[in-house]
């Protein structure tokens, strides 16, 4: 069996059996949030892990997707159409902004994407006639023709299926010639260019793809929780997303999922520590990255391989 198929199967089976271990709605809620984060992180990992281009502004795309769903369904637009519209708007914006921004390198790219994310979140916070401002706004349930997704259990399967589809897409992309081009860009842009890779086009493509995935996840999150607030588009959320990708392991799709799940569950576990929560979270994050600089999954994989030999 190919490794990708095994990974996909493992994930699908994991999602299918997890409900047996979820005793109540609260656990379902955490699992759903983890799944939503994982969808964004799998997309972001294509950009950061595989192509080597950092983005500190993806929460902006997530927020735009969420608000597009919230605002358009508020005007009576059917939820799937609003979601598609959000994805198209974000895709177009990412393509437009990506053209000049992706010419920047390293820390300058980090700065530009950070600036873009902050501008989006400030616009959302300030234009309160449309967005409800800092208080956020309510979102209609996700439904079509009188049928709608209600309750944690139904949402669990929607998010689970979306995550499996996203991972399948990412694994396929990486195994394709496009994926090889992306990794070549990560290795050296000049070398990739010399070999005939259209560097600017591929970088823009993966930027748009990751932005659209973030927007779709944002729409799902908005409908699930029935509420959006500007914090979801903010700088801290962008940082959280990048942290999940790096924590789980860059250039590992399963790593992105693991990172998203662990860093969604961890703060929930740490709430029992009350005042020590922030302190512990920072210490764990620092410690893990110092001991496993390549991230959790790649390090564990190396250890596993060594143990087998």
């Amino acid at each position, binding site marked *: 069996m190919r490794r990708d198929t095994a990974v996909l199967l493992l994930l699908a089976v994991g999602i299918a059996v997890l409900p047996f271990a979820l005793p109540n709605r609260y656990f379902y809620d955490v699992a759903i949030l983890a799944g939503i984060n994982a969808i964004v992180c799998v997309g972001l990992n294509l950009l950061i892990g595989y192509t080597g281009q950092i983005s500190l502004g993806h929460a902006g795309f997530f927020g735009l997707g969420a608000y597009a769903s919230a605002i358009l369904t508020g005007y009576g637009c059917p939820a799937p159409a609003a979601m598609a519209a959000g994805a198209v708007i974000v895709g177009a914006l990412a393509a437009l902004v990506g053209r000049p921004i992706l010419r920047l390198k390293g*820390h300058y790219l980090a700065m530009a994407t950070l600036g873009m994310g902050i*501008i989006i979140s400030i616009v959302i916070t300030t234009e309160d006639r449309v967005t409800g401002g800092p208080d956020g706004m309510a979102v209609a349930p996700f439904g079509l023709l009188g049928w709608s997704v209600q309750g944690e259990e139904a949402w669990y399967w929607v998010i689970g299926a979306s995550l499996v589809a996203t991972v399948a897409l990412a694994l396929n992309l990486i195994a394709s010639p496009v994926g090889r081009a992306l990794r070549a860009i990560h290795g050296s842009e000049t070398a990739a260019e010399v070999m005939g890779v259209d560097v600017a086009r591929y970088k823009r493509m993966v930027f748009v793809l990751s932005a659209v995935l973030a927007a779709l996840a944002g729409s799902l999150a908005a409908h699930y929780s029935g509420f959006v607030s500007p914090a979801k588009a903010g700088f801290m959320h962008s940082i959280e997303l990048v942290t999940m990708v790096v924590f789980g392991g860059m250039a590992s799709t399963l790593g992105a999922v693991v990172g998203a799940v662990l860093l969604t569950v961890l703060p929930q576990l740490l709430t029992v520590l009350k005042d020590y929560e922030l302190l512990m979270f*920072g210490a764990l994050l620092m410690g893990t990255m110092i001991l496993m600089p390549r991230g959790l999954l790649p390090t564990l994989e190396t250890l596993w391989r060594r143990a087998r030999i």
Partner: protein
Amino acid sequence: MLSQAVQFLFSGLTLGAIYALVALGFTLIFNASHVINFAQGEFVMIGGMTTVFLVGFGLPMPMAIALAVAAATGIGMALEKLAVEPARQASITTLIIITIGASIFLRGLAQLVWDKKLHALPPFTGDAPIGILGATILPQSLWAMGVGVLLLLALRWFFARTLLGQAMLATANNRMAAQLVGINVRRILLLSFALSAALGAAAGILIAPITLTAYDVGTNIGLKGFAAVMLGGLGSSAGAVLGGLLLGIAEAFGAGYVSSAYKDAFAFVIIMLVLLWMPRGLLGGAAAERV
């Protein structure tokens, strides 16, 4: 009209001086280690909060300030020894996440040692506004600008005239070559974190009487400092100061003339436009990549 513009210029320069100090802290660490220290804002918070609490215990202000700067310096050195040095081999992105972890940790520590409330530090020398050209300026703003300039001059002297300063410049230029001529680059790295933390703490103490301080003020001011560094050009000290001042002035005028809700967006739009035309910031020099 003029008095209004002067007023905005004053508040812009005050903010700008603070941003410049924070940006210089980023630059010092980046030049010595190629790490962007996202915990830089926390030094600002530690400076302000420690001073507030020491003054609250009845210590005289100058002593409280000295102790606060010393505390931040110690934490900066601990950060280098315990978090950055063990991860020297890690990628740039991993190092960024490590410093983000450190900043979360320090914020957690601050709310544990102190509290989550907003605190005001009394101004150094009263709060009677001074009138200049029809505008008014707080004595504390003069302190911020004045001490900012003094610290800049001191740094200039340090880098131009002392052996240690020259060693730091040499390490920034070429780490390997510096090591070969006998410079202890690990000590230089430690020193850069110490200096950078002290600068951040000084900025935090100078601004605390004007904008208040709390355990979580570091994030925002660190972000602005980073933005100032990128605007000026990464690695350039002059660029850091220029970027800080421009950012402060842009924010003050943007808030005054355009919209106060959009004042932060204004600064970031300027940075993105500059980066489009000058992809390495104002004083970052021409791009050259080794393949």
